[in-house]
Structure formats: C-alpha cells, structure tokens
C-alpha cells in the first residue's frame, strides 16, 4: 500500500507500523522503548508523529499503516514532546555519561544529542541503589528509564520470568521476582535483559571498566560452545588481546539471544591453561610437538591397534561443541577408515 511520510510517497506492507515503514525507507523516527525483539508498547512517546485525520499525536511504533495515510515525523509540536520526554528522563536518575559504561552506545544519550539537550531542566532525582548482587549483571537503577524492554525480554523472549515492574507512578521500578536482589532471585544470568537495555542501567558486570565501546573491535563469530551455533559479536581489546564483552547478533539461529555460557564464559581464549600446541606423552611427560608429528603418531597407533584387536575396539564420540560438518567427518572416518559403527554423540539421549 502507498502512504505519504513527510511528503515522500512510500510503499508499505499491510500490518507494518508507521515506524517500520519509515525505517524501511530510511526515514528516521527516534525511539526509546521500541525494540524489534520486544515489540511496540507505546511507553516512551519518543516516536510520536502526526497523522492527518487522527486527533493528537500518535505513536508510530503502535499504529499500523493504512492506504493513503499522511504522516509527518518532524514538527515543532513533535520536537517539543520529544524534548520533554528526554528532559524528564535525564532528570529521573543520575545520568553521568562521563563515566557511564554505556556512553557511546546509549539510546538516551543519542536522543539527547540529537535534540541538543545538555542537561535536564529539572532537579535530578534520587533513586534506588544499584543492585550489584549477581555474578554477571550489574543493575544501576538510577539509569533505568522504565522502558520495559528487559522485562519483555526476560518474560517473552527467554521466558525466564524473573523481571517485572513493581509499584506505579513515579515509584515504578524494575524488580526481580518479589523485589529481591538479583542474586537471590530465579534469574539464570542469561543477560538477555542487558542485551535489550537501551541505557546504562543493565550492564555486563565483567565488562565494566574494560574499555569504551568505540575503543573495542567488533568481531562477528559463532559461539564455540554448542551445536546451536549462536551468532555473536565479540568486543575485543586488541591492545590487551582480550575479549571485553560478548553480545548476541540479531540473526538466525539465535536472533539476539545467548545462553549464560555463550555470553559470559569468554575468558578461555586467553586462559593460561589453554592448550596451544599438540602434545604427545614421552617418557611419562606431555611434550609440545608439531602437528605432523602428532598426526603421524596417532595414525600409526590406530593402524597398530586395528590390526591387532580388530576395528570394534574403537568407538568415536562426537561433540556438541563442534559443527555438524566436523561431526559428519568424525562418523565418516570411523566407519570408512577405521571400519566400525561404534559412533556416538553427547547430544544423543
């Protein structure tokens, strides 16, 4: 269907929202509470637009497009409303961007930047103390803008059902279970809430102080832990040659989610205990050897044993931590080269 946004004719699909249609056509509408993973809620009021024939200002994230709709995304009234929202939010907590972990990747900061708001015009509120209790999630409530994305993520995306809002009005706050510290709650530390938080309220605890977002290299990769093959981005500190943080990518198969291992167990590449060479036991001691030597040694041993005891003394065990192709190669090798059907896998139950 055809509609007009800011005088530009655009084509949109039935069921799309104005926001989606605008974004598809490169028309920018600011948002704070909308996230493609958690959907529209109409909470922040940043995405307000004017629609001819509809009374008052409308949230573009919730209104579906209609044939012939005429939409305006920029006007004095809209800027005033957006400024009010950002102004009020900046005053609702302690937004000290200078040392905030999220600075540079914060949607509230971006909004303030775009609207040219330097500091809030209201006195800054005192709010709840930070919840530092849990192992991986650092929850600085004073930066929470109550967008509800973490809650929607925890309940509807990963379905861990830990987070919710408690109280109402200006007292509204995000709580774990019945308002207990996160460490005492049923939280499984999947970090989905962190992934979705638009501000510095929910932060990966281990990443604090490990580098600003613009200093870190972003490397897309596949999680090495299991066969799901979640897509992730490593934020790498090249200078120190270490991973500072891991985030999920919004692509298949995981579409923006990760489990606690994939998201937080990322220190192993730089662990001193990690094997970096093949090793062969010589005279009762493991010694570093070349790949050629290691492979020759292994091939030789396999041949000897098969000749002596037959192929069925062998069995191969595949792993969920490697790819399908690797697992395929393992079973092929076991059947075709060794000659036994003794193949098994950790994921077979």
């Amino acid at each position, binding site marked *: 269907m055809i509609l007009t946004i800011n005088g530009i004719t655009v084509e949109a699909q039935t069921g799309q929202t104005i926001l989606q249609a605008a974004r598809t056509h490169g028309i920018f509408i600011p948002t704070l509470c909308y996230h493609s993973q958690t959907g*529209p809620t109409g909470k922040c*009021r940043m995405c307000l637009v004017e629609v001819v024939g509809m009374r*008052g*200002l409308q949230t573009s994230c919730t209104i579906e497009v209609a044939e012939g709709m005429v939409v305006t995304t920029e006007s004095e009234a809209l800027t005033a*409303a957006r400024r009010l*929202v950002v102004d*009020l*939010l900046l005053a609702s907590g302690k937004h000290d961007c200078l040392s905030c972990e999220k600075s540079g990747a914060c949607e509230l900061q971006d909004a303030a930047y775009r609207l040219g708001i330097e500091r809030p015009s209201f006195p800054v509120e005192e709010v709840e103390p930070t919840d530092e209790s849990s192992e991986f999630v650092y929850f600085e409530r004073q930066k929470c803008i109550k967008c509800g994305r973490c809650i929607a993520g925890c309940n509807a995306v990963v379905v861990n059902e830990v987070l919710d809002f408690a109280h*109402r*009005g200006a007292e509204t706050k995000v709580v774990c279970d019945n308002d207990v510290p996160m460490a005492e709650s049923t939280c499984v530390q999947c970090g989905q809430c962190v992934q979705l938080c638009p501000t510095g309220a929910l932060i990966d605890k281990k990443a604090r102080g490990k580098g600003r977002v613009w200093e870190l290299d972003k490397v897309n990769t596949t999680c090495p832990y299991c066969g799901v093959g979640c897509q992730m981005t490593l934020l790498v500190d090249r200078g120190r040659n270490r991973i500072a943080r891991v985030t999920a990518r919004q692509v298949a198969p995981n579409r923006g989610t990760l489990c606690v291992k994939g998201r937080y167990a990322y220190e192993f590449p730089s662990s001193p205990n990690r094997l970096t060479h093949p090793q062969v036991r010589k005279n009762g001691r493991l010694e570093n050897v070349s790949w050629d030597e290691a492979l020759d040694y292994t091939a030789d041993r396999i041949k000897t044993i098969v000749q002596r005891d037959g192929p069925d003394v062998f069995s191969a065990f595949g792993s969920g931590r490697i790819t399908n192709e690797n697992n395929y190669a393992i079973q092929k090798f076991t059947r075709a080269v060794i000659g036994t059907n003794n193949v098994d896998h950790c994921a077979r139950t």
Partner: protein
Amino acid sequence: MKNSVPKIATRADLDRVRDAARSAPDKDVREKILVCTGGGCMAAGAKAIKTALTGELKKQGLEKEVALVETGCLGPCVVGPVLVMSKERVFYQGVAPADAAEIVQEHIVKGRIIERLAWKEGPHKTPLPLQAEIPFFKRQTKIVLRNCGVIDPNSIDDYIGHDGYQAVAQALFSMTPETVIEEMKKSGLRGRGGAGFPTHLKWAMARKSPGEVKYILCNADEGDPGAFMDRSVLEGDPHAVIEGMLIGGYAIGAHQGYVYVRAEYPLAVERLQRAIEAASERGLLGENILGSGFNFALEIRKGSGAFVCGEETALMASIEGNRGEPRPRPPYPALKGLWRRPTVLNNVETFANVPFIIARGGAAYSALGTERSKGSKVFALAGAITISGLVEVPVGTPLEDLIYEIGGGIKGGRNFKAAQIGGPSGGCIPREHIAVPLDYESLNALGAIMGSGGLVVMDESACMVDVARFFMEFVQEESCGKCVPCREGTKRMLDILNKICAGDGCPEDLALLQELGGQIKAASLCGLGQTAPNPVLSTMRHFRDEYEAHIVHKRCPAGVCAALLVYSITDACTGCGACKRACPSAAIAGSAKVKHIIDPALCIRCGACFKACKFGAVLKA
C-alpha cells in the same frame, strides 16, 4: 429452598411475577418502612435502626402489618440515617435507634407525623415531612435512581414488580439488535463514565466488528475521589445494571459480561452478587433467557482500587490478569478489547439508563436535556454544600440551581467560590460562571468536563492553588507509570505546586506549569495523563490572581497554605493568655489583661493560637 424458586421461562411468566409482586404484599401490609441502607446511611448506623424497628414492631405485634424494607440511597446522605414511610412517603432524617419506639407508636399506631424527625427547610427550619414537598427531591428527575429508595435491592421480585426486566423482554421479543441500537441513538445517551461518547455508536461499532465471541463490560471502578453514584446504583438497584447489560449484550452480540467493581465497595459487590445469583436462579441470566434463545452470563471481577484501572484498556488488562496498564489505541476495544475480542465497556450509570430508554422509548429520554446533551445525570455533591449527597437532574440544569435550590446552598451561609467538576480530570467553575448549564459542551467551553459526576463545592475558605495541588498529588500517585510524560511529568508539576504553596515559587513557574501541562496532555498515552494537568490549567485560568498572590506576594489569600500564613493579634485581644499557653513555640508574649504579640520569627504557623482564642483576636492572613 433455592430449588423451590420457580424459573421465569417465558415473557408471560415475567408478567405473572410482576403482577404477583405488585399486589402480594399489600394484602395485609398497611405500611412499609423503607430504611435507607445506602453506604452513607449504613455508615451512620442504618442497621441498628432497622434492628430497633424490628424489635419495636414485634413488641407492638405489628410485624405482619408493617413491612420493613431495606432500600438504596435516597440522596441526602448527610442527614442520614434516613427512612421513608412509604404510604404517604413521609421522610424522616437523622433517625437514631432510640427513635424506633416513637416512630412505631406515633406514626404507625396513632398516625401522627413526627416533626422532630422531619426535613427542615429554610432559615426558619420549617419542617417538611412529605418527600414530595421537599425542594431537594422536588427539583430532581430520577431515571437512573428511579428505584433507589423505592425498592429492596435484595429482592428480584421487587424489581420485577417495578417493571424490571420488561425492557429486556421487549428487546428480545419485539426488537432486533439493530432497532435496539436505533433506539439508543434516538435517546442521545452519551457515556456517563467521563468522556461522554455516544453509547449507540460504541454499540454499533462492536456489533459490526467481525467475531463470534464478544464481551460487554461494566465499569464500576469509580475512582474519582468524592464520587459515589456508581456505588449507590449498584447498592440500590443492581438489577437495573444487569438488565442494561443484558440489553447491551443482545445489541452487540455478546454472551458474556463482566462487571469490574472496586473491592473497596463490599456492599455493592455483595448486592450485585446476590442480584446476579437471583437472576441466574430465575433464568434471567444464563441460557435461553425468557425462551428467546439468547444466552448471557454475567460475572463480577474485583479490582483493587487503582484509579487507572477505570481506564478502559487498563480495566481489560486487569480482567485478563495483567498489570493494570492502559494500552495504546487503536486498535479500539470495539474491534480488539478484552482478550483481543470485540468489547463494549460502559459505565454503571450508562447501563442503568438503558432499561428506561428501551421501555419508554429513546424519545422519552431525549425529551430531557439540552440540544446536544440528552437525558439526566447523577451528581455526587460534596464539599462546602449544605446537603451533600446524591442527586439526579436533567442534563443542562444550571450549576446554580443544583447548589442553591437542591443542595440547600453553601454550608454556614458562606459564599460560593468554585465547584470542581469531573474530579482529577476536570476543572473548576468559578463564581462568575455559576449559571453554567451542566452539559458536556458548556462545561468543556469553561475548561471543565462533565466527568463521572463528582461535584465538589468550595467556599471562600478554599485555596485554589492547594486544590490544584491536591488533584495533582492524586494523579501523580495514581499514574500507572507506563508512559514518560505522565509518570515523570506530573511529578514535576506537583513539585512546582508544592514549591508555590511553600512560598518558594518564582514568576517563571506559571509559564512552566502551562507548558508542562500542555505537553503532558499532548504526549501521554491514556486519558489519565491526557487530562491530569486539567485541574491546574483550569485553576490557573480562573484564579490566576491567587497563584500570583502565592508567588509574588507570598500570601495565601484563603489562608490555607501553612507556610504562607502570617498570624497576628488584633485589638480584640483581652490578654487572657489562651494563645500564649497554646503556642508550642513560645512565640507569643504579653502579660495578663494586656494585648499579646506574636513574634513572626518564632511562629511556626501551626495555628494553635488561632484555635485557642475565644475572642477572634488572632488574625490569619
């Protein structure tokens, strides 16, 4: 016992029950005492009076001849407990259990009216025993409240005897859903829950919405501070609401209804529950109602008294078991409401009008009211008015008549200053507009709204800045916290108002309030935020000088804002020393029989001296 109640399975059955109910009690009962058991009179001890009367009647051996009936709110709650001797409709007020003997012996046995308990009218306190003579009743037109104070809300037979359930029978047998909606259109009825949306339009939209399953809901959340008409209707005439919902359900094609009542209304819940059970038992709710083939079930859902849960989408979220938060519209409930099905939500009063409209015709209803606002409206009078209570008048009745002719004027003969109408979403009407007709259009033009009918009358002792502050505090606490402008913005407005009341206001504050108010209205998600600034904007419009007095002159003209008061002692002082003894701050000096003096530096503005002085010598300004 339950099984012995015969079902009302056909229209003829209904007529039979009606006729029986009309004649039966009168055979050996020569007088019926209607004891008001509305919330107000209950709180004032109506139950004890009923017990005393029962005992007295027994003592005199009159229990067969005289019936004692509990009935709903009669209106003038402030003079409760009240009762009506139904034969001649003699009205007694301020009744105490000790009066039972006199009522039985004098009124019933000897047929003498007890003037002591009669209504007192005018400066000479002329007793007016007959309800028909009392101006408070005379000027009213009761449609919604037609049965309140007339029938026993706990008796379905009494309701049927007063033509109850005749309208639904008519709708089911002589009308199509479309003609029902057409009749509603003729009536011109607009929703009484606040926004005044034409009821027939809402019904027609839901009827047209595709879907097998539809719902009809009744809003009895009644969150307006000071409003109690919905409670009174449910307490006094629950079957009228059930009947209205049945007709609405038939019109839109719904077979399930819910009444959302706040749990703080236990009596309303109890009576409604009993009414639903009685109607179900008799077959007026359930399957194949009156043999028409129409099915309709009704259930109560209790809310825990959050103001925002009166907002339609929040109410639905609450019924669904979710946090009571509004959701953006569109989609409108008529298309996607409760559980995403087409849904109509109407207010208690709206539904209570429906049986009248269907039985008497839309034209009979639209004969009342103004050009664009039809019918009658119930108001809950509160504040500085002589007779606070519940009244029903044709829409368009001037505010002045409501206050002076019905409500008996301002308490203590003081002067009217303003009336707040529409509660926290509404605005105030100042003295110069006291003649305003109470209809949707005229009120909107003055920056107020009809709202649900809460009407708080204020005299000169009210500070309008403080009134605005009160309502802002209310909405700020009741905001659901979902959207930013309302959650954070109302708090900022409240901060500014608190500052002004504390004497720390600056001239820029007025412009800031105006701007914030405008933006909160424009940007908020639901009606709560969209109307939250109204009391502030409206008082700023009509009483700007009062705001300026607080800000510029650091004075509260009404003498309400404690921080701005200055206490002083005039020459009327006799030097009795009462003020000096009362002052907790030792701010008053003076020796016996000599005029005392207050040291403003020590005075903490507690007002103790003002209260202590018997000579009116302490001045508060």
